[in-house]
């Protein structure tokens, strides 16, 4: 379960990692409904948040803030979803007073927020942070290393950039520390890393402390990834040493460990569609795409292969849905989720052992009876008790296929036929749908 940046930073704060002063402004509630007041309400809250932030600390005025869209997406900066503003930026005149000061900063942040929210992304919230003045940016992460069964710390003195690009171009710029899962992180390892990153004095101690805190977070919350990029090395001022502050937070909690962490609830705002959210509540793996073939497959590997085969045959997947394993008796629920898409065909492919073919065929036939799907269904259901499954399908007027590739070709042909029919303008409302689809793309 991926956490948004603000949620990751909440976890950071719990283990003592320094984060910038901030306020959260909600655009959507966690259940996916709009927060009160629409766009203007949200912008009013941005204004209030900035004014609160700029007054914090009693005396030291905050002169720059960062407005950051909270959504699960890489490259937010490039997409214009992270904006640094200062009081001088607002040059629009009017009632926002002259450049500088609290009012100027607030109105600049409001404009940045309006711009971010107008880009067409689904943004559940904005994080308004005090901008950190830094002299250097570091990179730090911890993740599992499966080959030797240990954890690996990746660190670089050249943070703030895309770490994968850095790894490809200058691998020597990335330092690695391996952690034995039974011994845990040792003090000498943290110290050594600090020196290898070129940090000295109090900063070296800070880095060692930060890594220890991050490892605590990683183990305590069963994370599959904790990443800080960048870690800001702040500019020291008279009376304060330079320090390390987490500029971003990427925390992914292991889904298999969520029973140990009841605080992390599955909520609507984490998903890009209602169908994806409802599938998650059912424990059904689901991915949203924008094609016209709904996949309803059992078995993760088989579903992934069917996904490939559809693409090879020139088809387009509307959704990836896998109802094998413990969900093999949820055919009706699976079909309901597929029908939420505007796909033109549902392709059912299974080859199960425990996920018995006869049970799945029975489920599919019942689902068709109850849901009366408005689109053709291709079935390729094999595995335990497949003879019975095929009898069931035939009795319901479905043609049971044995061969996965034949089933895929059938589905792709049906989808193509539906598209051709729509393009002839036979069904005006579907033509409208096509047009809106293009507008989004």
């Amino acid at each position: 379960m991926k956490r948004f940046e603000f949620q990751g930073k909440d976890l950071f704060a719990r283990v003592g990692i320094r984060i910038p002063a901030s306020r959260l402004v909600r655009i959507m509630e966690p259940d996916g409904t709009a927060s009160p007041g629409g766009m203007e309400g949200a912008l009013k809250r941005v204004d209030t948040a900035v004014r609160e932030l700029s007054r914090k600390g009693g005396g030291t005025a905050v002169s720059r803030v960062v407005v950051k869209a909270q959504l699960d997406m890489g490259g937010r900066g490039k997409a214009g979803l992270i904006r640094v503003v200062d009081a001088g930026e607002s040059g629009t005149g009017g009632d926002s007073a002259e450049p500088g000061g609290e009012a100027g900063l607030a109105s600049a942040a409001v404009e940045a927020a309006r711009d971010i929210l107008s880009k067409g992304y689904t943004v559940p919230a904005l994080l308004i942070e005090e901008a950190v003045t830094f002299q250097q940016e570091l990179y730090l992460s911890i993740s599992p290393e499966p080959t030797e069964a240990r954890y690996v710390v990746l660190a670089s003195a050249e943070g703030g950039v895309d770490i994968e690009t850095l790894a490809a171009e200058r691998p020597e710029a990335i330092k690695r520390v391996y952690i034995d899962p039974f011994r845990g992180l040792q003090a000498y390892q943290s110290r050594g890393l600090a020196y290898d990153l070129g940090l000295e004095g109090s900063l070296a101690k800070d880095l060692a402390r930060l890594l220890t805190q991050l490892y605590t977070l990683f183990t305590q919350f069963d994370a599959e990834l904790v990443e800080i990029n960048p870690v800001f090395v702040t500019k020291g001022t008279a009376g304060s040493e330079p320090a390390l502050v987490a500029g971003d937070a990427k925390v992914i909690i292991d889904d298999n460990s969520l029973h140990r962490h009841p605080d992390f609830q599955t909520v609507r705002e984490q998903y890009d569609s209602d169908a994806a959210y409802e599938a998650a509540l059912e424990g059904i793996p689901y991915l949203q795409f924008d094609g016209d073939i709904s996949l309803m497959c059992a078995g993760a590997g088989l579903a992934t292969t069917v996904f490939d085969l559809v693409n090879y045959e020139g088809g387009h997947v509307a959704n990836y849905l896998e109802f094998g394993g413990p969900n093999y008796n949820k055919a009706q629920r699976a079909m309901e989720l597929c029908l939420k898409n505007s796909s033109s065909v549902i392709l059912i492919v299974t080859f199960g052992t425990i996920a018995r073919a006869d049970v799945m065929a029975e489920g599919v036939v019942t689902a068709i009876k109850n849901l009366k799907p408005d689109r053709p269904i291709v079935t390729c259901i094999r595995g335990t008790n497949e003879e019975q499954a095929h009898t069931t399908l035939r009795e319901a007027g479905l043609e049971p296929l044995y061969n996965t590739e034949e089933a895929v070709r059938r589905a792709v042909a049906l989808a193509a036929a539906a598209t051709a029919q729509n393009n002839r303008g036979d069904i005006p409302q579907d033509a409208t749908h096509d047009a809106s689809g293009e507008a989004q793309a």
Partner: protein
Amino acid sequence: MSIFIDKTTRIIVQGITGKEGSFWTGHMIDMGAKVVAGVTPGKEGERVREVPVYHSVARAQAALRDGGEDEAEAAMLFVPPRFTKDAVYEALDAGVRKIVTIADGIPLHDQIEIRAAARSMGAQVVGGNTSGVISPGQSMLGIFPYWIERVYKPGSIGVMTRSGSLTNEVTAMIVEEGFGVSTLIGVGGDPVPGTRFAEFLDDFEADPDTNGVVIVGELGGTMEEEVAAAIDEGRFTKPLVAFIGGRTAPKGKRMGHAGAIVTGNAGTVVAKSEALTAAGALVADRPSKVGTMLRSLIAEPR
């Protein structure tokens, strides 16, 4: 012959009295598996298909010794994911060195600890999130539809796989081409499988009855690349065909299995295919090509 298990392998079943445990223990025995004891805490004295049940693995091993028999060398776990680490440690501490767990949903940090512990003790854990291991006609530690003849037939091809459903699909293609399976090992779909593809290659290389190996891989991780390295280094010299799912999967999306995700530049199917092809293996882009590719490499009569 076969690798990992054969008809002489003495097996203990942990979680034998549960619904899945008792059902599949029956199928294992029908397939030829030598199940010598079962374990369910609190159920000592019961029997499942004539197999005596004990409170613990240690007590089962003691009873076998007291009865003048050898201890069990392999354990099959029908234990829920959150208790799997405990069950693995229990088996390891009772001297078991081959352990198969089918559990789907083992916590990630448990997966790391399970593999680390097994390695430190010279043991092999297969799984989780797998159908297990089968040497058709000899023995089975797991849950395979061996009764579907067009899918599971004894023969000369070693198979290693990250996916149960896909294995049925690919194995059917192997059998359709007139081959059969020596041993099939499902290493599982988790990010940290207990044992990795390349760690079975030495055994397949040494097995006189394995003429070639098929690996059923998928996007994510580095297991396929490790196989390519083993071929490159000359550690494995028999014909090898790979099918790898997820070639068209979008980056950063988890395709079904927890381990099936491309992060950064690592784990793409293209990179895996290139590594294997460069090492001299054949890579099928569709399951239907696996059989014919094998046929092109192995001149075994149909």
